[in-house]
């Protein structure tokens, strides 16, 4: 056993204590936090600059959709 083994085993021991349902919520929470971040992005960052844009050109909608699908997947599986 080296010091590296000791470090690894310590981390491993701590991570083993985390219950899997909590981990699942961690995954989903990460995705939800990203969804919240996407929603608050200013429109200037998510639409074409210098011209009027249609609703479907707002990238926020599609990014949100991609994340919502992820939340669904990690909730089910």
């Amino acid at each position, binding site marked *: 056993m080296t010091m*590296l083994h000791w470090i690894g085993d310590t981390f491993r021991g701590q*991570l083993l204590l985390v219950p899997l349902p909590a981990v*699942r919520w961690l995954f989903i929470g990460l995705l939800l936090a990203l969804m919240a971040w996407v929603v608050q992005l200013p429109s200037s960052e998510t639409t074409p600059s210098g011209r009027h844009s249609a609703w479907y050109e707002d990238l926020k909608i*599609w990014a949100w959709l991609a994340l919502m699908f*992820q939340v669904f997947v990690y909730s089910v*599986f």
Partner: protein
Amino acid sequence: MTHLTSVDYLVILSYLAATLAIGLWVGSYVRSGSDFFLAGRALPWWAVGMSLVATDIGGADLVGVGGDSYRYGIVMGNFAWIGCVPAMLVAAFVFIPHLWRCNVTTIPEYLERRFSVQLRASVAAVWLVLMACNLGVMLLASAQFMSELAKWDMSLSIVGVAILVGIYTWSGGLGAVVYTDVLQGIVMIGGCLMIVVIGICDLGGVESFIDKVHAAVHARARQAPAPAPTMIDEPSSVTRAKEKLRLTKTKEREREHLSLVLPVDTKSPGPWPAILFGLALVMSPGYWIGNQRIVQRSLGAKSEYEAKAAYVYGALLKGLIPFLVVVPGLIALVKYPDLAADQAGGALPMLVGRLLPEGLRGLFVAAFLAALMSSVSSYLIAATTIYVNDFYRRFYRPHADEGQMLLIGRWTTAGFVLWSVCVAFQMMSFGQSIYSVFQTLMSFVVGPTLAVLLAGMLSSRTSSEGALVGFFAGLFTSVSLFTMNLLSVRTWLDMPPLFRIDAPYLYYSIWAFLATICMTIVFSYFSRPDPAEKTRYSLWEWREEGGAA
């Protein structure tokens, strides 16, 4: 897989002819070095987005993920879901627009603007060596898989794929690679979708498929070895406890096969800390933000908005990919439940050979070829771009004009094609394990590259010296961990393995990333801050200045 018929070959030849035609057509518009390396910064979002996805799915992944999902279950879906989508979206709105606005051609070029020429040359050299070797490995892997799938001669496959990819990359550069990727992406998605639809219909529809998967997983979990019998008579309470433990283990294994979130002590390559910290927080951002073969496409987008849109579109597509590459593995599990662990890699070829009729088999082989060619071409254009921009132009001909850049770009492409064929033939004696070794080697560089990129973009206090020391410290960490975990070294040192999973490359990336960050912070603290003309390339100062270069 059974032999292909003339109808299958007709389908494959049509695909190859279409690929070549697109590549040569794009090549007819290439007039300068900028056209060659960044497609004249005129690429539309839909082409870049599809190209990102096609590049990401290698041919080996197509077969490998199918086999791994047969063996380990849907956990392999993590590599396209949480292992791609969050990083792609953060890259889309934060990092890619910044790189696009900085008007750079390569990631090392950005590192020189923000830090120093030493860091640029170091990062470029490490990536170039790995990419050049990987080119040969990809060609060899293509030939090995084509030999398994369709009994093609390996030498002929190596030379054939190299010449075909070489011709269209030589002709059209990045534009040809991206537009052929669009065709390759469509063929790849179509080919995999076909297997999924035909496979599920063959099993009696979606509901029947789900029931049969549960039954197959249950049967497989029960096959695990029972506890060894004891020599003495046990009390009935001990026997009951053992039986209860066995049932619990069976249920756990069954649950693991159909779950994305696996415990720390799983035997699969996806325990949750590796997936969350290694894949989602290091490897994936490193791949989508710091890997030249991926980022170069978005640097060629026609506007900042199109570069962002490409990544968002790619993220949407990536959400669907696991259904196309993981589900075939589950279909194979239902149809051929008795494959041994070392035969799982053959699950998808077996499915294709037995399930698909004449003609459609050719379409699947075309899809497979598409995935292989898209990987090879992405390495080819990225290696060429790094060599020409970060070495030839930077150190040898700083005043080379656009015509000279185009010429040297094309000849470098030809040189790399020749090199990759030689490497592939040289490596034929190493066997298939060389592919996974090189994939692991690539993973060493991702963590340190991401760490110095983030440190440079997010903090103006990070110094050039700090980043350089940090980069090498990260490389040293990952190489040391890999070496110490080798069986021969462990036997020699008489110590247990450092990691308890079979392929711990996600863990290497975490530690390499952390080592780079720590050393960068420490050395930046003790060294002089960079001058304003360097720190202006950090994200916040750039925004405050309004992006004036």
